[in-house]
């Protein structure tokens, strides 16, 4: 088993400072946040440029080249509703440190993102969701099958499809939490990789609580077989938990300084 893959989530248009930097093509704030995340232990960086309807292609190319040239071809997850922008990003992407991740397909309107990933030999995050939130794991697994078949029909390896159970917010959907964890176990039993926006669980909670909830959930999810998550790597408690779980799972060899590497 490989190490848990941390995809850093902090390069996103949802952050005003990054949104502004993307719009103005200002490298400095983007590079600063990228460096913070990589130093903290992120493997991949998610580049969320939002819907980016007008200049998405140009923006994604700019971001990919900027980040890869500064950080030794850091592997990236390309995250936007603009498909052409993802293709443009991949066209300038260097694979030396890992395939690009297409973020993301679902089992409804965005299923074609799998085709795009297949055509470009990319990894694809596959959200096990159709229209609205799946009511139970039968429905999630049906979407999982649909997505898996779609990807494989287009020539993808199963390992390049990272299934996302869709983490749900505790405040409002507390009763669904164990379902999500069971769903991860089902992915794992099928030998599939998985990922997701794990910190979604603690949305709306006080700032001091979120790292605690996120850490507890990541530990439980890793026990179930989760292989990756899209998270904030600058959450120290979370990263310490992930590194510790990697030791327990045998994904990394323990050394006294394991938290520092």
């Amino acid at each position, binding site marked *: 088993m*490989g*190490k848990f893959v941390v995809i850093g989530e902090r390069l996103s248009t949802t952050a005003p400072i990054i949104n502004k930097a993307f719009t103005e093509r200002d490298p400095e704030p983007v590079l600063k946040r990228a460096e913070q995340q990589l130093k903290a232990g992120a493997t991949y960086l998610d580049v969320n440029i939002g819907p980016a309807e007008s200049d998405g292609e140009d923006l994604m190319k700019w971001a990919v080249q900027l980040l890869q040239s500064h950080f030794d071809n850091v592997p990236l997850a390309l995250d936007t509703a603009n498909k052409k922008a993802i293709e443009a990003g991949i066209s300038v992407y260097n694979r030396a440190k890992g395939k690009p991740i297409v973020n993301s397909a679902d089992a409804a309107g965005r299923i074609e993102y799998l085709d795009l990933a297949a055509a470009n030999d990319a990894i694809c995050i596959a959200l096990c969701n159709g229209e609205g939130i799946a009511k139970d794991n039968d429905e999630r697994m049906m979407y999982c099958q649909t997505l898996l078949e779609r990807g494989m029909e287009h020539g993808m390896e199963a390992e390049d499809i990272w299934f996302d159970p869709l983490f749900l917010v505790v405040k409002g959907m507390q009763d669904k939490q164990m379902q999500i964890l069971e769903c991860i176990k089902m992915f794992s039993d099928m030998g599939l990789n998985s990922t997701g926006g794990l910190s979604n669980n603690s949305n709306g909670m006080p700032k001091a609580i979120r790292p605690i909830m996120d850490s507890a959930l990541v530990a439980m999810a890793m026990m179930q077989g989760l292989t990756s998550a899209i998270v904030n790597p600058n959450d120290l408690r979370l990263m310490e938990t992930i590194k510790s779980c990697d030791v327990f799972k045998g*994904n*990394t*060899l*323990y*050394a*006294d*300084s394991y938290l*520092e*590497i």
Partner: protein
Amino acid sequence: MPFTAKSGKFSASINTLTMGTGEKAIVLGGENVFPFYTFDAPIANAPKVGIEITDGGLEAEPDCVKKYYEGCTTVADMAKKAATFEGVDFLSLHLEGGDPNGENKPTEDLIKIVKEVADAVDLPIVISGCKNVEKDAEIFAKASEVLDGRNAVMLAAKEENYKNVGASAGLAYKQVVGAESADDINLAKQLNVLLTQLGVDAKSIVMNVGTAAAGYGYEYVVSTMDRIKAAALQQGDATLQMPIITPVATETWGIKESVATEEDMPEWGDQEARGIDMEVETAAADLASGSNAVILKHPESVATIAKMIKALI
């Protein structure tokens, strides 16, 4: 369904590390497959074989080794002679006489020998310590200084003296730093982390992860090396991708199979043959388990292991 052979080639690889300088320089590591798995991917740098002499000179050698050094009066003479034996890639000078619990030779005396040996041969040089951590720190600092520019290996820094040895050998004189642990994978990793945190270049570290003579708890050696190579290659653990160098002679020439005379143990047969057998068996097993270099004493062992490596790679 047709059978498709799956390659056991990994995307990660063992670091390449150069020992020595000039024409005689050798390269350890670089492989991205398990030991001798050349059917999965080519292994560019075959494992290397070193020969060990000590500061004690001819007197300190087992009787069966002495005849190979006939006519040598100094350690430097022996070094020159050793360099001519078949299969020798590098020379290891074991400064065992420095041990405060043994002969306790002053560091200056030992360093004088280091200098003479270095002047006598152009082979890559390994300086093996006396096992006392304080004395070794002193010896390695001085040896690093007199061997400046030779890209020598200081074998080795331990948990107790890694700061001193790392600073002198690694930082001040850019020699290769050995990192020694004894069949303890977690400590092997930790030492590499500590040395790199100190500023020593990860690509200038070689590990001695411990060995035992075959039959003396050797299973631990196999599992230690196996797990280190698995972490380095399968998990891509950069803190364990350093090549491994294993001193074999120091283990095998002290055990009863090598020491007992034929008069005492007539049923065991020829003493020299036993000594060589123990050394060759242990070295072969170390190499099969993941060592990138072994250090031997008997010229016949060296030639045999060199031949084995050549036949396999």
